[in-house]
């Protein structure tokens, strides 16, 4: 999957599919979401053109000497629910995080023809191997919560909510849930 995203790429994706992201993505988590929305509401420009972009919910560890980034796995997404519909309306086409979203946000992904991707929480060391370049583009004062532009190659993720209303979490759990009456 090339980043930034062309909507056509999203049509064939199904919840549960593994996708590999190559290209440019932007990071933002709690504090950066708040700031980005404040900036837009003031009528100022966003730190990056949102059209077709992927936002990755991550607050990486500082890079040790010789590395472009430290550990860089996903953070829990629901904390960004408050701001997500607004950013999807601005043109964001995919976000990468982990965990459930509210029903409102789930609908908002479909309305705006965007997908929710998840990657393995707690696998930050492994995921960092797929990040080739990291550069702060806004809100440096937020430390680990600053907005970074990342160049990624082979970045692994799974489709959680697709354009057709499927939900990886719901379907997966339904498939493996055992009826309590069968418990010995």
């Amino acid at each position: 999957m090339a980043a930034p995203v062309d909507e056509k790429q999203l049509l064939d994706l199904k919840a549960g599919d593994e996708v590999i992201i190559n290209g440019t993505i932007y990071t933002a988590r709690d504090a950066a979401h708040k700031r980005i929305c404040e900036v837009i509401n003031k009528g100022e420009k966003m730190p990056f053109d949102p059209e077709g972009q992927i936002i990755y919910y991550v607050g990486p560890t500082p890079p040790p000497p010789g590395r472009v980034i430290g550990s860089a796995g996903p953070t829990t997404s629901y904390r960004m629910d408050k701001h997500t519909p607004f950013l999807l309306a601005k043109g964001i086409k995919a976000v990468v995080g982990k965990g459930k979203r509210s029903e409102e946000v789930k609908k908002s992904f479909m309305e705006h023809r965007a997908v929710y991707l998840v990657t393995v929480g707690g696998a930050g060391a492994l995921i960092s191997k797929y990040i080739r370049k990291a550069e702060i583009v806004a809100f440096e004062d937020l430390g680990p919560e600053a907005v970074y532009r990342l160049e990624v190659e082979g970045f692994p993720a799974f489709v959680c909510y697709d354009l057709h209303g499927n939900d990886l979490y719901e379907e997966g759990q339904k498939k493996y849930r055992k009826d309590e009456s069968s418990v010995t």
Partner: protein
Amino acid sequence: MREVHWEEISTAVSELCKNINYYINQDVLEAFKKGMGVEESPLGKKVFCQLIENAEAAAEEGIPLCQDTGLAVVFISLGQEVVIKGKSLTDAVNIGVAKGYGEGYLRKSVVKDPLNRVNTGDNTPAIIHTEIVPGDKIKITVSAKGGGSENMSALSMLPPSAGSEGIIDFVVDTVKKAGPNPCPPLLIGVGVGGNFELAPLLAKRALLRPLSEKNKDEFWSKMEEAILQKINNLGIGPQGFGGRITALKVSIETFPCHIASLPVAVNIDCHCHRHSTVEI
């Protein structure tokens, strides 16, 4: 009295902070390998595979297992025959945390005020639990507790009439509500009894037990097994993608309580499960 210089404590804390973030505990790694064999879901297997690769990558490259290197939760058993020289125990621990998180390129995840949220810049203050014990040693355990799993933890002040069933239902329901958010496969610490503030501490201490160690009382160890089975029947699976393994272990710790109360606390820990102990 035995004298211990504060720097011995801060150095030990600093090393523990780094090591727990880079190196996964062996018992957890073994559980991943076992889990990969048991898990039926193809995506679940894939998750276990990535977790094993992640542990290797962290150790090889000297970077943390997870970017959330946690709040440092420090348990100290201080021998009553020890005198700490030079600085207070609290200062010694916090200096150690600041050093470990700085030198180790660990993320600083602490904000000074819960609402204005300015980062303290060195991951202090640590949360410190100290108990005075007989002897002349200091036992220090550092655990790094991530926000994602801590946010999904819960406390309930049950009526005593709720009994075993009430305890089991509350623990299973807490894990069910958490779903994929706290990064399954999980470790579940349960505190039963005590009071409003002790039950969560019992739950947190329960998480420090090795994966192979059951509650010493047979009744409670059976309840640990029963809860684990019910949790794994939920089908949440690794990362919530669906599967047989949602939790790797349930550990219960208990304490006497008031005739009117049955406090139950559930502390959820993610699969990184970072903690280690040294004795000075």
